[in-house]
């Protein structure tokens, strides 16, 4: 039905754009990771020095592990908050479901900066939370660890990523045909048995998708730590960012970025494979 010219006209511009502005840049990133900086200038000398540095100096592995830990915490907490919410909305919300859904997406789109900043003002030493606690005479002095700590980073990022986890989960739950729930009841399973035997297994693809997104995005997050984190909560993307900034070592930064990229892609591929195995439709 569509002529060859049509197909070429339609495919060429996006293909060109994507090749030029995505494929090429990612390739450049990879290339830079094999170059070095000498006397403040980037030299195109191909070597594995950067990767060697990453393996030799323990600080990188340390920060990487810390980042992974924070990402895992954020993912788990987001699931803990997001799953019951999605379940409640899908199975108990009735008429208000649509409105509630909109209420959940709105925070998702409101600027990251706005939300991060909000937490900054709440958690600070002279912030709202401390003021609140002092007002209630729960504390006498401001608590300092609320802000500029891994706690603050995890809290803020959980706030940011809970709607992320919610979305695919909710979509997945909504796709479970109501007749399956009825069939389960019909066969003698009460609400709890129905949840564990029917709903939960069928919601796994949604959980996987949401968890992967939250984990991957937290892994590469540098804004959160810059807003509410302190020295003990520096994450791997912060190191990259400073290497491209004041620390000026683009090749090393590129090398770390490539590692993040590879890890991300690996996780995504893994999730996709798992989802295929669990696909029942």
């Amino acid at each position, binding site marked *: 039905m569509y002529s060859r010219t049509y197909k070429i006209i339609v495919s060429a511009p996006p293909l060109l754009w994507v090749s030029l502005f*995505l494929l090429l840049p990612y390739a450049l990133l990879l290339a830079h990771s094999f170059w070095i900086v000498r006397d403040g200038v980037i030299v195109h000398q191909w070597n594995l020095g950067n990767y060697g540095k990453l393996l030799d100096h323990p600080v990188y592995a340390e920060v990487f592990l810390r980042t992974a830990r924070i990402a895992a915490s954020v993912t788990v907490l987001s699931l803990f908050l997001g799953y019951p*919410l999605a379940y409640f909305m899908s199975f108990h919300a009735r008429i208000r479901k649509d409105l509630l859904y909109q209420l959940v997406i709105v925070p998702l*789109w409101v600027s*990251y900066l706005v939300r991060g*900043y909000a937490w900054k003002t709440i958690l600070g030493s002279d912030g709202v939370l401390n003021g609140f606690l002092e007002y209630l005479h729960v504390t006498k002095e401001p608590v300092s660890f609320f802000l500029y700590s891994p706690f603050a980073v995890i809290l803020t990022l959980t706030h940011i990523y*809970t709607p992320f986890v919610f979305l695919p989960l909710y*979509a997945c739950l909504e796709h479970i045909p109501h007749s399956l729930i009825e069939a389960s009841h019909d066969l003698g399973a009460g609400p709890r048995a129905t949840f564990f035997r029917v709903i939960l297994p069928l919601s796994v693809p949604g959980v996987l998708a949401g968890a992967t997104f939250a984990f991957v995005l937290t892994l590469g997050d540098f804004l959160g730590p810059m807003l509410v984190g302190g020295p003990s909560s520096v994450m791997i993307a912060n190191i990259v960012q400073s290497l491209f900034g004041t620390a000026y070592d683009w090749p090393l930064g590129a090398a770390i970025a490539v590692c993040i*990229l590879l890890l991300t892609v690996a996780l995504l591929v893994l999730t996709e494979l798992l989802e295929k195995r669990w696909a029942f439709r």
Partner: protein
Amino acid sequence: MSRVARGNSARAPVLAAFSLLVFAFLYLPIAVLVVYSLNQAGVGGFPPRKLTLGWYRQLFADSSIWDSVVNSLLVALGAVALSLVLVLLAALALDRAEFPEKSLFRRLVLLPLVLPGIITGLSLLLFVDGTGMPLSLLTVFLGHGTALLSVATTELFAGLQKMDRAQEEASLDLGATPWQTFWRITLPNLKLSLIASGLLIFTLSMDEIAVTFFLLGRSNTLPLEIWARLRRGITPEINAISTLIFAASVILILIWYQIRTRTIGKEPSELLERP
């Protein structure tokens, strides 16, 4: 067939309470932000005492903030224009054309969606640096156009799938050329989807930080202007502008949602979009 709303059976008071708590968690910080934008004594402390619009007045007098707003608008509108054209073509290509690397193309287009912003931002920086182009709003514009391509493509693709193909076939059958069919049938059908995608790109572009961070020249976009000030210290003026941003985003997203449900129905999609 099932006329029963789910949840007709058991009430779940515990779940309802928990859900309420989650909503509170999601909205309380923003509520605090808004309240303290009106607090005379500024940010922090409790409880907020005197309410005033003073900070907003100060905000409106602040010219550099509004300069950055203009910059953001320029970039956002540019990104919308560029993206819509590219995205329309890309969605059509994915839907209709067959070429060997199609699945690779699809993955590549969707990649910025799932990668942390820093990766895409850095890669584009290297590209721009390689071509010798100076960093400016233009480079920011390129960055947004590329990064937001994925978001809009999935959006428009969904709308395209819902379109009735038979209409195009009928048009061809009645003697219209493919070009005519495109303008008279396909495009009008996609009108709502295009508007929805445009709104989405606009909103995301206005809020974009991660990619912008690395591609910025001397002129700041709004988020980065705020960011720069934050480094210097917290002021309630920032609360004020944040509140305004929040209000604007809410309105835009609610409009977007209304349009979207009209195009692809109320089925929630599994698509994820980055902040």
